[in-house]
C-alpha cells in the first residue's frame, strides 16, 4: 500500500519540477520534508515501477510530429500478447496496449500509437509494421487525430476535484 506521504509527493511533482538549481529542495520545502527524503522517495517509487519514467515530457505536435494515428487490430486472443510485445519493439510505436472489444461496433483488441511528421510517413510506417509482423490477415483500422481539444499529463489529484483528497487519509 502506498504511503500518504508518497501521494503528497506525487501530487507535488506531477505538474512539473521547478527549473531551478535545487528543484527537489523546493518540493521538499512545500511538503515539510528534507531534500534527501524527497530524492530517496522518488527513487524508490521509480524503482518500484509506480513512476514509469521521470523526465522531460515533450509536446510532439509542437516539435513537428503533427500526424498521430491510433492503429487498432482485431487479433485472436491467443496471439495478442505475442503480437503486442513484437509491435512495441518498433521505434515509431509510442504506445501499445491490449483493450477490450465492444461487440460488432468495436471488434479491436490491440491498440498502438504512431506519431509521425506527416500522414504519408505514418502510413509508410504502418505498412512496414504490417509487412514485418505479418499482420495482413488481421482486420485493422487507422484513426488519425484531427483536432486536439486537451492535452495534459495525467493529474492523479486534479485541482478543483471534490474527490482529490478523498482517499488520502
Amino acid at each position, binding site marked *: 500500500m502506498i504511503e500518504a506521504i508518497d501521494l503528497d509527493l506525487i501530487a507535488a511533482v506531477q505538474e512539473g519540477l521547478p527549473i531551478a538549481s535545487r528543484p527537489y529542495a523546493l518540493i521538499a520545502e512545500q511538503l515539510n520534508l528534507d531534500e534527501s527524503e524527497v530524492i530517496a522517495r522518488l527513487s524508490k517509487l521509480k524503482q518500484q515501477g509506480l513512476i514509469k519514467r521521470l523526465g*522531460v515530457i515533450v509536446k*510532439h505536435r*509542437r516539435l513537428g510530429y503533427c500526424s498521430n494515428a491510433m492503429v487498432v487490430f482485431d487479433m485472436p486472443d491467443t496471439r495478442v500478447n505475442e503480437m503486442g510485445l513484437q509491435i512495441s519493439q518498433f521505434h515509431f510505436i509510442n504506445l501499445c496496449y491490449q483493450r477490450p472489444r465492444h461487440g460488432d461496433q468495436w471488434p479491436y483488441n490491440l491498440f498502438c500509437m504512431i506519431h509521425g511528421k506527416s500522414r504519408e510517413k505514418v502510413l509508410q510506417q504502418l505498412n512496414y509494421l504490417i509487412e514485418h509482423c505479418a499482420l495482413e490477415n488481421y482486420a485493422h483500422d487507422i484513426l488519425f487525430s484531427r483536432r486536439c481539444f486537451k492535452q495534459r499529463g495525467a493529474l492523479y489529484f486534479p485541482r478543483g476535484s471534490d474527490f482529490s483528497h478523498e482517499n488520502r487519509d
Partner: protein
Amino acid sequence: MLTILHKQLLNDYQQDFPLSPTPYLDIANSLGITEEEVLVAFSALSEQDFISRIGPIIQPNQLGISTLVAMAIPEKHISEVAEVISQFPEVNHNYEREHHFNLWFVLIAHDQQHLTHVIKQIEKQTNFKTMQLPLLKDYFINLGFQLNLEPQEENFPINA
C-alpha cells in the same frame, strides 16, 4: 529555433532525469556546459511550449484507475461536446479522430466509483453514449518519445 543543446535536452532526459540534489548541474557537467546554460535552455523549451513539464509518468492503474473513452458525435456537435468534456479535471488527451468514433479521451480517477460517476455526468451533460476501453495490458516498456529533430528522412530501424 532549436539548438543542438535543446535537442539533446529533449531527447536524452525523458527517461532518467537525475535524482540528485542538483540535477541541472549534473546534466551540465555531462554536457560540458554551465548549469546556468541548462536552466536557460529548459526554461526556453518550457516557455516556448516544446515541453509540457519535467516530471513523472505514473504507471497506469497503479494509483487510481483510468480508462480510454470513445464517443461517436455528429460533426456539427463535436466542438461543443469536446468543450464540455475538457472541463472535467479527470479528462486528459481529448482528441478528435477520423472515424465513426470521433472523440477520444482518457479519464483518470481515484477509484471505480468516481470514474463511473464522471462517465455518467459526461453522458448526462452531452446526451451521447460513451464506449469505455480500459487498459488490459501494457506492452510498452520505454515510454520516452524519441524525436528525430533532423530535417533528413528517417529510416526504420528496430530498437536494439
